[in-house]
Structure formats: structure tokens, C-alpha cells
């Protein structure tokens, strides 16, 4: 029989009490772990979605020609073919140091064509990357599948008086209108979209593109660095960050993170309070027992050791269980709370160590005061408390 035997026997033989104490602490820790992990996972999901949502880097030809407005961005002159970027140059973008941060590259070739009585701007795009980048597009009909299908902006469809399923002629070639875009309020409403290779052929610009939009993931990589890296790879192109987009995203993310941290702080505080009250109650109900220990000659330090060892064992157990349960809860809740179905749960060792450390600190701190109080108690008073 040593002092630690008293602590261990108490925990072993009073299983219900130990379970209650452990569960009390575990619930607090699990709640903290779940909310912190959910917040971080959702923050990461939102960050990823925002990064995928539209371009934040624009690659245009280095040009001093006529300006043309696209999406509010001043582009290089499209009438001077010699200024256009070669399609194979785009492959170099994927070789930059931060290539993993590139979510999508959407090359475009632009040129004016006549359809019926009207002059319209034909845009050759890679539909897969275009749709990934412009997730706000609502298409009536279908997405164009082959080279002989086109997608029309809403204004273009009205002016040309065509609907999905109709046909139009461009430079003598027949094209099926696969779909029409819902009103976007942007320049896309007036455009006719065809597949990139077909548009290049129709416009006589094979192997060349007019501009490329790049969606880069902001997290862990300053956009400025990526702009420099792309510019180094394609010296003939003008690479610029769409500052308005970048700054907007960072600000929105910053606000979300601040909200998340505020939420996590409140949860940590409430969890700590639960733990403190539970541990206080547990020690206080052992007043008589502590009185007996003191009466038979245990020093204050002996009492402290018994109580703190018990608190440490319970806290460690609650910390490990709380982390496991908390992560399980976060995994179950994430699909319902995150924007996308395939949001990833963040497994962070800092949260694992943090939760065990927090449980231990809270358990010991919460026990320290009542243990000190109990150890200082007059044994006669403690025994009278029965």
C-alpha cells in the first residue's frame, strides 16, 4: 500500500464515479475538439471553394495594342494576332514551384464572327475548366460536348433568336446550340462559347490563345509569389493578380476565421467550466475521507498527491477519449455542415496533443483548489462534516 495505490483503488473500485467524472471531462473536451475541428475543416472547405470560385490570376499577352474589356479587366489587344500566347506556353504554368496551388487554368481565344445579321464575340474555351471556375453559371439545356456544339450567353441567344437544340451557322459551319446561360450580369451574357480547338480553327488562330485565367488556391501561398513564378515561366505574357478578388477572399476568410476562433474560445471556456465544477464536486464530497487521512497522520502534501494523481489519470483518459469522440463527432457532422459533400476532415496532431494537454491542465487546475482547501482542513472539522 502506497499513496498511488489509494488513488488507483479509488478509481478502480468506484467505477461509476470515475465514469461520471471521466464522461464530464470527456464531453467538455470532445465538444471543444468537435467544434474546433469542424470550424477548421469548414474554414478550409470554404477557402478551397472560394479559391475555385473564379479566377484570381490573369495571363494576357504583353501588348500595347487596342484595349478590350473583359469582365471589367483591361486585356491586351485581340486584333493583333502576333501578340497572342502560344498554347504550349500554358503547360509551363504547371511547372512553377507552387503548381500544387493551381486549381484550374482556363485558356481562351477571342475573335469576332458574324452569325446571321449580327457581329458577335466568339470565345473558344475548355468547357471543363471553364465550368469548374465559373460555378455560378446556370445552363438551360446541356453543356456542349463536342466541337460542333456551342453555348450562348442569354443576350446572345435573344439577339440571335435561338434556343437550346436549335442550330446556328458560323463561317459556313453548322453548330448545335447545346445550352444557353442564365443571365449573369457580366460580359458572358453577350458571348458565344465554342470549344477551344474549334474556335481557334474558325478564327485562324490554331495553337494560340488570347488569354488564360488561372484559379489559384490562396491557402499557404501568397498570390504575389505565384504571379512572379508564372511571369518567369512565360516572359512574353503579362501576368497579373486580380487584386479585387484576392483581397476580397482574404477579407472574407479572415472574418470567418475570426468568427470561428471566437466560437472556439466560448466553447473552451464553457468546457473548462464544466470540468472545473465536476472536479470541485468530486473532491468536495470526499471531505470526510480527507479528514480520516489527516487524522491518521497524512501530511497535506500526501493528500495533494492522492487527489492530483487521481485527477491526472482521469484527465488523461478523458483527454484521449475526448479527442477520439470529438473527432468522430466532427467526422459525422462535417458532411451536413460543410458546403461541399467531399469536404476533408482536418486531422491535426496539435489538436490531439492540445486536447490531452487541455484535459490534463483543466483537470489538475480544477482539482488544485479543492485539494488545497481539503488538505488545509482541520481533521476534526472534516470528520464532523459527515
Amino acid at each position: 500500500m502506497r499513496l498511488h495505490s489509494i488513488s488507483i483503488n479509488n478509481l478502480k473500485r468506484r467505477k461509476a464515479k470515475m465514469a461520471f467524472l471521466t464522461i464530464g471531462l470527456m464531453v467538455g473536451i470532445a465538444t471543444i475538439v468537435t467544434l474546433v475541428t469542424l470550424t477548421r475543416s469548414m474554414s478550409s472547405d470554404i477557402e478551397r471553394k472560394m479559391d475555385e470560385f473564379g479566377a484570381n490570376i490573369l495571363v494576357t499577352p504583353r501588348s500595347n495594342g487596342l484595349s478590350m474589356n473583359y469582365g471589367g479587366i483591361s486585356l491586351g489587344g485581340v486584333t493583333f494576332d502576333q501578340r497572342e500566347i502560344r498554347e504550349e506556353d500554358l503547360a509551363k504554368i504547371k511547372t512553377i514551384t507552387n503548381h500544387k496551388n493551381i486549381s484550374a487554368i482556363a485558356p481562351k481565344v477571342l475573335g469576332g464572327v458574324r452569325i446571321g445579321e449580327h457581329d458577335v464575340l466568339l470565345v473558344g474555351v475548355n468547357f471543363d475548366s471553364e465550368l469548374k471556375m465559373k460555378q455560378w453559371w446556370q445552363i438551360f439545356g446541356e453543356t456542349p460536348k463536342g466541337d460542333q456544339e456551342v453555348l450562348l450567353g442569354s443576350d446572345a441567344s435573344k439577339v440571335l433568336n435561338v434556343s437550346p437544340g436549335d442550330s446556328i451557322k458560323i463561317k459556313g459551319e453548322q453548330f448545335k446550340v447545346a445550352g444557353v446561360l442564365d443571365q449573369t450580369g457580366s460580359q458572358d451574357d453577350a458571348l458565344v462559347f465554342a470549344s477551344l480547338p474549334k474556335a481557334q480553327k474558325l478564327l485562324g488562330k490554331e495553337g494560340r490563345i488570347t488569354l488564360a485565367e488561372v484559379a489559384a488556391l490562396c491557402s499557404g501561398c501568397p498570390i504575389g509569389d505565384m504571379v512572379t513564378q508564372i511571369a518567369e515561366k512565360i516572359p512574353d505574357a503579362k501576368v497579373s493578380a486580380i487584386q479585387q478578388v484576392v483581397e476580397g477572399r482574404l477579407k472574407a476568410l479572415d472574418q470567418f476565421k475570426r468568427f470561428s476562433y471566437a466560437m472556439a474560445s466560448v466553447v473552451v471556456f464553457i468546457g473548462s467550466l464544466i470540468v472545473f465544477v465536476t472536479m470541485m464536486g468530486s473532491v468536495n464530497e470526499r471531505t470526510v475521507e480527507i479528514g480520516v487521512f489527516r487524522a491518521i497522520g497524512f501530511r497535506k502534501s500526501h493528500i495533494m498527491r492522492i487527489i492530483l494523481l487521481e485527477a491526472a489519470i482521469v484527465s488523461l483518459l478523458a483527454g484521449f477519449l475526448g479527442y477520439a469522440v470529438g473527432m468522430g463527432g466532427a467526422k459525422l457532422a462535417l458532411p451536413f455542415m460543410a458546403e461541399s459533400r467531399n469536404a476533408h476532415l482536418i486531422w491535426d496532431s496539435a489538436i490531439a496533443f492540445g486536447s490531452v494537454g487541455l484535459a490534463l491542465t483543466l483537470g489538475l487546475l480544477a482539482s488544485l483548489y479543492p485539494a488545497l482547501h481539503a488538505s488545509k482542513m482541520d481533521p476534526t472539522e472534516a470528520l464532523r462534516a459527515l
Partner: protein
Amino acid sequence: MALIEMKNVKKQYASGDDVVEALRGVEISIEAGEFITIMGQSGSGKSTLLSVLGGMNHPTSGEVEMAGVPLYQLPGEKLADFRAQNLGFVFQSFHLISYLTAIENVMLPLAIVKMSTAAKKGAARSALERVGLGGKLDRLPNQLSGGEQERVAIARAIVNNPHILLADEPTGNLDSKTSEEVMALFRELNDAGQTVVMVTHNPDNGRYSDRTITLKDGTVT
């Protein structure tokens, strides 16, 4: 020289705005090997006297000497050490630790003593055998009768071979037959040389002791 000397011991408690005088200048001298019963009516100061004797309750004034040691002049935790080495307590409600078995309860005072676990177990087993519970070492308190719990409490009080065994109403919660058995056990321990000081309100218990000290309103009569 007496084993225990109490000189003009006074103990006052604050009770709201009033001051209660539990002990009013008590003078007691107890020799080694004596069996003393302290009797008196409820509120006469018996339990206060025992707690002062046991080094658990600082007197307001006066001196308590045990084997020549001025008890309440011991610095810091030395008083706790003194209790561990020299005193054994038997409480009225037994106060066994509910999650420890009989032998573990008896070993409790030895938890802070440097001894091998085997030696501690041997001492606890021997103490339990002395009180007639050698066959119930691994029972938890709730698996023992009231009389058996009292015996475990006595074994716990004598396991460290204390100079003095202090008992507060040890038969208070027992039926008359069990009370007699317990009192006979105290007598037996005293016959073997153990000094016993017992607080009781039962006059029948007095016949087991060598001497009875009667308290009335905090004074020895």
C-alpha cells in the same frame, strides 16, 4: 512521568456572535498502560477533549504534552508525523474508506511509512487476526457487519503500534452484544500493554476501564 499531561487546557468556539467554551481549564494526567474512559453528557466536551488529545484540535490555551513532547508546539507538519507515529484513532462511525478492502484499510496508516509492501501486508494481516478478522481480509466495508467494520477500524488504529489508542464512542453504532465484544477487545488490547483513552456516554463501558474521567460543562468533575 505521565504519558499524557493536559495542563489548564481551554478550548473556545465561535458560534455566531457567541463564544462557546467547550473546555474550561482541563487538567488530566494519564499513565502509560492505563485504560481511561471519558464520560459525560452530550455537549460536556468529551469529543473536543479527545480531539485535543489526538493532536487534531488546537486548544485556545493550555498545554498538552505526550511522552514529554509539547504537542501543539510542534512546527508545521510535524504534528501530522507525530499522529502517524504515536496515535491510533477509532472513530464513532468507523470512517473506513469505502473503496479499500479490510486489509487495505488497515494498511492505510502504513502508506506513508517506508516499509516493504510485504512487511505492510504482514503487519495488517496480524492486526486483523488480533481483532478476529483474519478470514475477511479482502472484504470491502459494505460487505462487513457493523461489528466487523468496528474491528477493522480498531485494527487500522493499532497497526502502527501507537503509544496511545484514542476511541470516540466506538460502540455508539453497535448493538449491545457487539458492543460487549468490542469493549472486551479493547480490554484485551489494554491487557497487552496498549494505552487506551475512550470517550463514551455508556456507563456500562466504564467497567472495562481502569479509571473514568467525567466531564461536565467542559470541566473535570
